[in-house]
């Protein structure tokens, strides 16, 4: 089973950790994994991405246009930016919360992400939108966007991993004090996607 996963967001949002969890979950299933991510200047508030590919017969860590099974958008505009990577019938899970670039604040732009969500709704059938503010309020921590998106990715069916796979990866990769919180985030997604 092969899967191509694109994660995208704004530098500092934690796309790298999420891609590490996906990679760990796939490796636990004895599948070969390759990934690539943005490192360097763009990490200072620029657009960042990770590509994760697992399965056999993969040569390159990079994903081509129209090849991604799923896009995990940490920011709605960034999800739209990565849309050319999505294959026909692929899934998108995205946060609805826009992050305004400094340049937009300076110019008084009205960007709020709403038009991005509308565009996604028009173009992606298999779409999951998460309001992180609402979710985090219920969960009790502002720092679970990662796991919320992973949970939604599981329920989209497009990531090829189960909730158990993700839970095991969290247990193996994150400090114990964060386990409960992240499990709660997975639960939140399950509750709201049923």
């Amino acid at each position: 089973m092969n899967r191509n996963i694109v994660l995208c967001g704004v530098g500092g949002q934690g796309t790298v950790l999420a891609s590490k969890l996906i990679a760990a979950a796939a490796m636990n299933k004895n599948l070969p994994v390759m990934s690539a991510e943005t490192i360097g200047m763009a990490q200072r508030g620029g657009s960042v991405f990770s590509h994760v590919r697992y399965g056999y017969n993969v040569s390159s860590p990079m994903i081509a246009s129209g090849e991604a099974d799923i896009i995990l958008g940490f920011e709605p505009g960034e999800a739209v930016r990565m849309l050319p990577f999505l294959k026909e019938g692929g899934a998108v899970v995205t946060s609805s919360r826009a992050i305004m670039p400094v340049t937009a604040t300076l110019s008084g732009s009205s960007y709020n992400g709403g038009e991005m969500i509308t565009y996604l709704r028009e173009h992606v059938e298999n779409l999951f939108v998460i309001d992180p503010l609402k979710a985090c309020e219920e969960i009790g921590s502002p720092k679970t966007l990662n796991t919320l998106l992973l949970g939604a990715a599981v329920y989209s069916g497009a990531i090829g991993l189960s909730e158990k796979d993700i839970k095991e990866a969290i247990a193996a990769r994150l400090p114990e004090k964060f386990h409960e919180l992240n499990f709660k985030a997975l639960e939140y997604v399950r509750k709201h996607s049923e």
Partner: protein
Amino acid sequence: MHNEFLMGNEAIALGAVAAGVNLVSGYPGTPSTEVLETIAKRRTDSIYVEWSVNEKAAMEVAAGAAYSGARSMVTMKQVGLNVASDPLMSLEYVGVKGGMVVLVADDPGPVSSQTEQDTRHFAAFSKLPCFDPSSAQEAYEMVQEAFAYSEKYGTPVFLRPTTRVCHGYASVSVKDADEYMSHTPSGFVKDSARWVIFPRLSYQNHIKIEERNEKLSEDFSAYKRNQIVRPSVSETGSDTAANESPVRKGIAAAGISFTYVLESLKGIDSIPVLKIATPHPFPEKLALEFLEGLDAVLCFEELDPVIEKELTYICGKHHLPVKIYGKLSHHVKNAGENSRDSVFQDIRRFLKDTYDNTPSDSMTGNSSDVPPDLPVRPPVLCAGCPHRASFYAVKTAMQGKKTIFCGDIGCYTLGNAMPLDMVDTCLCMGAGLGIAQGVGRIEPDTHCFAFVGDSTFFASAVTGVINAVYNQSDLTLIILDNSTTAMTGHQPHPGTGQTMMGGVVDKIDIEAVLKGIGLDMVETVDPLEHKTAVSCVKRVAKEPGVKAIIFKSPCIAVTKPKGSMRVLTDKCIGCKKCIRELGCPALITPKGKVSIDLSLCTGCTLCQQLCPTDAIVNRKAGDSNE
């Protein structure tokens, strides 16, 4: 053996550890930095590792170790090699005893660099053998082989990965600790005829080097990582025009582009691919074997057309009627990164026709469906970054005066962005000082400023200060001392007092260094005390000669935030001075009104200090009617 999920740079590090490397030195630079950091984390007791003060020092330290029979590695990014080129060029004429790997990471794009220079040219220029890995697994094995070649031929060798190999992750099969090679250095043996470079020795060794590289070219033709690959046809037959054309075609590729080619050729029959793992000395014999029977070859490589030129040369030398296509023939783009998509399209065009028509760049796109305008996200200084405060203080103090602000390499290059707009020039590490002096000679009425970070100061600005003092320049040196090497991920440096061996040593005091050079006026100020900082700049800038201000405040990524600010909505008049003048990412306008993003604000208080109506307060203080 066991499997680990490793970044290419981590794989290189573990490969060096497995090869029994004894000493590793380097200077941080994207995309090379994680190699040395991983060695420091995963080293055995017999490995010494250091961040050197710059690449030249690192190269010399590694050379000394190799003179002593140790296996050594030196790490840097491509522009770092420019700094280290003086010792390297001579080192090739002297040679080494222990194996020495010069790890230089190239950065096509460029993603995080000043240039798109190609270290494979440096290999030909300096006459060093060069290894070019295409994946993390290959890089892991290649570094071990590189040490063996280095020892066999008594020469330092390049290992030259590019960004996508350095920063790509893969499950890599690596050795267990009990499988590591152990290497005991034989020690330095005095022999001035060997270790002291003189014109006569250089002449004699030059002859040997040329002979050796001919032998190496033969040797490399049999090296297993240089190969002619025929992609397997597991999927049903050939789908595209590969067989429709009477022209016999092949592809030559290297590095990450080789993996893009493999992906693009899935399901396509009978296209031979020449993979070049050692661009210098070029494996001519293998290339000849590949070229024989072909009519056309398309080359995929990033940065410069090294393989394309070599193949063209070989065809000319052997009178082969093979057309070589690539960057030089404008069939592959000649700047920036290759991508899965660009390689796929280029191969399709190559297989479809015989390039009789002029190459077209048309991609089939459905332009009817345009997404909304996407936000542009140039990188910016972090919320709470002390550099913002330093730039703002100088900007405020020098308002209305004729000035030039010469910048340098580091996070603070981002001070060029609006609204700060405080970097007029940026060239290379340490250059701001020299540029400021040159401008001052031609425009004596300009207040010349040179901004330099603490790590860059030690790396390459000290000589610039000495030059300015000796030659009686007029300039204000601004040291942005955030107590770390922030841009590359917080490496220690001589001013931090920590070493990569875990030691705590005496910090080298920048103020004392400057006074030692002869500066009379050196002031140290906290840039986050805005008024004090501004008056300090005013006072210092009007003095003649070379004087310095050290803006000292730690990087927000290495300290705990002091708190956070908030806006009192009843006091805020919406003038947006804070946003217009600072450009801090924590200052946002969600509903047209200024607000502060809690998740980003560090409580630096700079916005509070410039608010004309005192509408910004510490979150703990003031009332709570936000």
